[in-house]
């Protein structure tokens, strides 16, 4: 890495306020040519705001930015893009009905005699994709690509704009580890070409895999910048949360507990078959497996959003084949989705309404919805879960992912479920919020709730579960006791059967 060159992009004392709220406070930052510079921090630490300043979506209230040594201020994303600073957002934004090459050149099509020069476009697109070492035919419809491929097309699109600085906002959040590795290869190629890369990730091990330097943000301030080679995970965590993060395992004896949920021979055609398990009161049953093994599908079948062809389910001894989530919730079974954005949050409604929507009846006073009762409820969980927000009246889309998830947890608990199905409860959630969610889950089971925990994070499954079901291709491949489960035994069952 060239430590001596002029920074591609630098910031000095960058500050951003929203009303009285200082979300970014005097941030100094340098991105050198050919460097991967990671930014880490908890949700709400200011990462998103920082990116939005770098790309001109927001204008800073103080401080200055320089682009290759010259003072720079971006009027908007178009402006920054025109000057080679390009953000790849977590939510990809390709036009699904256009081809790969059309997507790459959307907005700046190569022209000949006033019409699109298809041949030139095809050549350029092919060249860009080859530069990224990916094998995607440029004529493919973008909607037919996998998420990982779409990401590559976004990067190719960035390169078509002569990207000098590439900002990747949690690019690996939607990728499995193989795909993430491919992305890292591409990042290495771009590095070698002298492009500076800003890399945001929640996965600390990825920082050590790909980044040269790392800057830690906490509450809008930089708490540390270091060469990755000089620091360890503990250092990162300490700077992120200001305290250590413990990974202790907890075991509990469930032998004399009554059984709450029994599932026998459950099957859904084309999704899963022959699924049998029991869940005891106060137990956390982890469901592990590779993506596509049918884990979420089981949960969806339980609450009636996927068809069940055969099998028997009982909840506290009563038949529990539900035809819709409403019936399931009434009987005491609630499913908290893995896809917060698509089917979790009510984006343009206040936090308060997001928290209470699942059981509005509980907030009736004299037959009318009582805002006071609702506010009491959300205030209670705000305290318990440390939800950070300006107030229960703000639209939930303005909250960070971790805080949104906490609100959805409150929503789930408003129905007072006997069995709570948590699907990837900490996806896209930072390490501090994760810790809080974990201890909250423990508290729930201590109070007698039973939990089905679906997770792709090994550590999460191992840390929380009393027993672990491992799914493979729609079937239960193994049931492991807490004591016999480790990463190797789970992976063996998930991948080999």
């Amino acid at each position: 890495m060239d430590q001596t060159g002029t920074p591609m992009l630098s910031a000095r004392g960058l500050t951003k306020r929203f009303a009285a709220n200082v979300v970014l406070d005097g941030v100094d930052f340098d991105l050198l040519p050919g460097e991967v510079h990671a930014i880490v921090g908890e949700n709400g630490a200011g990462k998103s705001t920082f990116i939005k300043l770098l790309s001109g979506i927001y204008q800073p209230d103080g401080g200055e930015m320089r682009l290759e040594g010259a003072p720079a201020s971006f009027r908007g994303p178009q402006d920054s893009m025109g000057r080679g600073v390009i953000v790849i957002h977590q939510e990809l934004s390709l036009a699904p009905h256009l081809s790969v090459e059309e997507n790459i050149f959307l907005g700046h099509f190569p022209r000949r005699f006033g019409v699109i020069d298809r041949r030139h476009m095809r050549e350029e697109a092919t060249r860009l994709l080859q530069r990224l070492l990916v094998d995607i035919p440029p004529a493919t419809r973008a909607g037919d690509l996998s998420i990982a491929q779409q990401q590559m097309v976004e990067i190719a699109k960035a390169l078509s704009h002569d990207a000098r600085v590439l900002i990747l906002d949690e690019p690996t959040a939607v990728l499995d580890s193989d795909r993430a590795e491919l992305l890292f290869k591409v990042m290495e190629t771009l590095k070698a070409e002298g492009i500076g890369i800003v890399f945001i990730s929640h996965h600390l091990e990825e920082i050590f895999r790909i980044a040269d330097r790392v800057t830690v943000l906490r509450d809008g301030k930089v708490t540390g910048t270091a060469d990755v080679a000089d620091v360890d995970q503990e250092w990162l965590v300490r700077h992120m949360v200001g305290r250590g993060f413990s990974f202790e395992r907890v075991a509990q004896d469930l032998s004399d507990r009554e059984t709450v949920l029994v599932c026998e021979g459950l099957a859904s055609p084309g999704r899963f078959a022959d699924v049998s398990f029991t869940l005891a009161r106060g137990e956390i049953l982890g469901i592990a497996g590779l993506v596509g093994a049918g884990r979420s599908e089981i949960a969806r079948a339980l609450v009636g959003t996927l068809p069940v062809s055969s099998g028997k389910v009982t909840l506290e001894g009563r038949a529990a084949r539900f035809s819709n989530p409403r019936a399931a919730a009434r009987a005491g079974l609630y499913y908290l989705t893995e896809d917060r954005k698509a089917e979790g949050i009510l984006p343009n409604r206040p936090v308060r309404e997001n928290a209470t929507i699942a059981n509005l009846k509980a907030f009736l006073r004299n037959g009318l919805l009582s805002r006071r009762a609702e506010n009491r409820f959300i205030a209670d969980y705000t305290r318990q879960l440390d939800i950070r927000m300006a107030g229960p009246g703000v639209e939930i889309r303005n909250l960070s992912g971790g805080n949104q998830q906490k609100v959805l947890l409150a929503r789930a608990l408003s129905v007072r479920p006997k069995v709570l199905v948590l699907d990837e409860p900490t996806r896209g959630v930072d390490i501090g919020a994760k810790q809080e969610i974990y201890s909250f889950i423990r508290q729930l089971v201590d109070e007698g709730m039973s939990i089905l925990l679906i997770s792709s994070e090994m550590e999460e499954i191992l840390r929380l579960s009393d027993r672990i079901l491992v799914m493979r291709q729609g079937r239960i491949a193994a049931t492991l006791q807490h004591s016999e489960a480790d990463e190797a035994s789970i992976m063996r069952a998930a991948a080999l059967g």
Partner: protein
Amino acid sequence: MRSFSFNAGVLGELHKRAGVILALVLLVVVASFLSDRFLTVPNLMNVLRQVSIVGILALGMTFVILTAGIDLSVGSILGLSVVIFAGFVDQTSVPLAIALGLGAGVLVGTVNGLGVAYAGIPPFIMTLGTLSFARGLSFIYTGGTPVPILDEGFFFIGNGSLLGVPIPSIILIVSLFVCAAVLTFTPFGRSIYGLGSNEDAARLSGVPVNRYKVAVYAISGFFAGLAGLVYSSQLSIGTPIAGQGYELDAIAAVVVGGTSLFGGKGSVFGTFIGTLIIGILANILNLNGVDPFVQQLFKGALIVTAVFIMGRSMRAR
């Protein structure tokens, strides 16, 4: 805890609707400069009476648009109920005629809702279908000729007043408060916002999405019937072309009132103010003798400008 109570109640409503209310106030000020007849009680009552029909339609439309739907059939439902009122009021009794006319509105609305919720037909298409269908029924029922209404008592609904306030306006304002209460204080109303904001999330949270969708179209149908009641009583004639194009005026009032066509955002108070803004604009143009053809230009410009300004203020936040 200050922020916890800030958005509550009337103050919160005013705060959220500040833009629309400001526009209304501005319009009133400008209007009173343009004509000294504007700020007189008879003229204001006249405005209130004139906006009643579209105002009532727009209330029902607000429910539908809050779910990210649209109801193009309200003008035709109004027409259908008008000919039913006319057909029955003199043959049977006023209450029975009213029940049948309103019932027809609810029925067509329910058909809309069933098509949208259970058959998965896009609201635009479904209600475009019933727009044509209901209008066809009115023509068939009347054979294309207007049916006169003779019952004196029936006229009172459209033309009478109570303490100086026109009855149609009283119907509108009472409906407004009932709708506002339903949307604010009932689980049904709250769920309407939720399902408009994110239908899948609402379903997973246990909201009976399909049933509620049927309900909002039935409500819209009911208000279309109610507007038809005012219409037929005001004109004392049941004409099968009644209400043609009114759906667009109702949508305009909802949109000018700040309700998002994408669902989950808006209120009936906003819609009411939107209705007033459009009504006052028409009134002031009338008072100044502006050609009715030219008035259309003003209305069009108003709608686009209003949405443009609201869009900007939303982005700015």
